[in-house]
């Protein structure tokens, strides 16, 4: 009986083109769009300022500063009329130790101005060190060499680790887990459509009259949707690895173990199935189920860090995020993609998801039994 119910559910979902689009095409498109759109946010080489330089100091040092600035990929040499920033080196800038004048043409954010200042300072200080070194060399080669050894190159002075790794997370690593999580909860659409259609057409009544227990009806939906969810996860990962790079965006890198990836995916899908099942058995019409399902998915996503990353939320919102199963799933996936996590590292998130799934499934069985006793 169980295998027949599972096979039926499988066939029904696989023949529902709209549901398949919602489950596979929609998150794949989101991954593509968001990875490409967020590419520059996560790129190290992204910050660049369009600058023009007005040099009134004809000294070799000033010329060298100009040369160094244009060599830096953070600065793009632009005609004065198109530049965002105009740098003015006044007459006797080096000799009289004058300030560089910075004329900001277009609006820049405070953090961009800070970044501009930091990047400029690096070049100015390097130049000043060169001058000091040159002067010192007349007196002491040793002192000059000591000054020369002072490097202002960031890579030589600073070692940055992102989540204990030297690699920066790329936009694809951020967007793939987000849309896997969001996409999985969209099984509410096929599940509720099939369930409510069964109820409206009296197929459920017929099955009950054939002694099919409510628990079996609910649990038989787990197997097909679990498999579909794993397929969904694999497809989204493949989109991240193979499709996204076609659009000049970094490919997805999985730093954690594959067993961890499948374990969190299993736990997340169980929780999505339980939640969808609960809405499907509670709703009266397909419209009600898809509306409630859609809204609750968006709310859980917004709270859980799908729409807005948790790390930029205020503290109380980050605490609130913990009530959303999407947040548990997202944390688990991010640990795997960014932190080389194994099953042991994602066990707490997985257990919470599995518990949520089991509890919601059991509540669904109770609701279905009550409805069955009351003539659906």
């Amino acid at each position, binding site marked *: 009986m169980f295998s027949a119910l599972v096979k039926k559910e499988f066939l029904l979902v696989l023949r529902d083109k709209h549901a398949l689009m919602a489950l596979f095409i929609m998150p794949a498109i989101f991954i593509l769009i968001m990875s490409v759109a967020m590419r520059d946010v996560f790129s190290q080489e992204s910050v660049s300022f369009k600058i023009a330089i007005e040099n009134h100091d004809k000294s070799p040092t000033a010329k060298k500063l100009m040369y160094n600035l244009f060599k830096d990929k953070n600065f793009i040499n632009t005609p004065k009329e198109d530049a965002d920033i105009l740098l003015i080196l006044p007459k006797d800038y080096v000799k009289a130790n004058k300030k560089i004048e910075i004329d900001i043409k277009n609006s820049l954010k405070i953090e961009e101005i800070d970044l501009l200042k930091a990047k400029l300072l690096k070049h100015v200080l390097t130049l000043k060190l060169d001058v000091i070194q040159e002067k010192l060399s007349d007196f002491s080669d040793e002192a000059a060499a000591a000054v020369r050894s002072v490097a202002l190159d960031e890579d030589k002075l600073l070692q940055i680790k992102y989540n204990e790794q030297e690699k920066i997370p790329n936009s694809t690593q951020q967007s793939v887990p987000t849309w896997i999580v969001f996409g999985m909860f969209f099984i509410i659409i096929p599940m509720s459509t099939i369930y409510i259609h069964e109820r409206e*057409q*009296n*197929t459920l*009544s*017929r*099955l*009950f*009259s*054939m*002694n099919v227990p409510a628990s079996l009806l609910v649990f038989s939906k787990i197997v097909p949707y679990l498999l579909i969810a794993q397929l969904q996860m694999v497809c989204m990962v493949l989109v991240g690895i193979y499709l996204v790079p076609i659009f000049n965006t970094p490919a997805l890198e999985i730093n954690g173990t594959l067993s961890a990836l499948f374990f969190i995916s299993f736990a997340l899908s169980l929780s999505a199935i339980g939640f969808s099942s609960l809405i499907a058995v509670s709703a009266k019409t397909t419209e009600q189920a898809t509306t409630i399902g859609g809204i609750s998915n968006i709310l859980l996503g917004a709270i859980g860090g799908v729409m807005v990353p948790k790390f930029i939320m205020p503290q109380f919102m980050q605490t609130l995020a913990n009530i959303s199963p999407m947040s548990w799933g997202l944390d688990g996936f991010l640990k795997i993609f960014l932190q080389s996590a194994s099953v042991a590292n994602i066990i707490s998130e997985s257990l919470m998801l599995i518990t949520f799934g089991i509890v919601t499934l059991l509540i669904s069985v109770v609701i279905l039994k009550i409805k069955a006793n009351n003539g659906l």
Partner: protein
Amino acid sequence: MIQVHDVHKSYGDVKALDGLSFHVQKGSIFGLLGANGAGKSTILSILNGLSTYENGYIEIANLDLKTHQRDIRKISSLVPQNLAFYERLSVRENLDFFSKVQKTNKEQYQKAIEVNNLENFLDKRAAFLSGGQKRRLNIAIGLLNNPKIIYFDEPTVGVDPKSRSEILESIKSYKDFGITVLYTSHQLDEVSMLCDEVAIIDFGKCAIQTKITPKTNLKKYFWEQTNV
């Protein structure tokens, strides 16, 4: 075969069944006539264990419905008014599914196909069947468990005259297999043509139960006994 005695059922303040009583002979085709809201669907629902009742007594095949619901379900079958199958599955896939759910045998499976003339549409998606073919599939599913009792809830709604006549003929043939049929309908001519006996339900009560003979004027009974 079926004894319904003084059964009461309410939905809040609304009395759906108000002391309904009737009895159905084994192997007969029994018609339940009544206007909308008379209580036909409620009693069908109760007889199939899909709804409870407050007072009264129901015995089916000498078994008390309240205590032997599972056993009674095994020997009975419901053919709902709606097309209670899966339109995205083919005829064969639907029959396979309902057959496996009830663990029925191949012989019965074949019989359900033959009696309902479904041989030529087995691989057709149910959604693409004609109205009459859909009705026949709906009925075939009801035959899969080799039932001793079949409950038909207005099985000819929305069916063209040719298919209607085919359906009624196939239901008539169930008598040859010793199946007891309980048939609800609005259609007086259908019940007159098909049934051996009829009960007219009005406001949750049995207004009259009578055998149908060539002389029975069902129309007269219906207008006299109901408040329609």
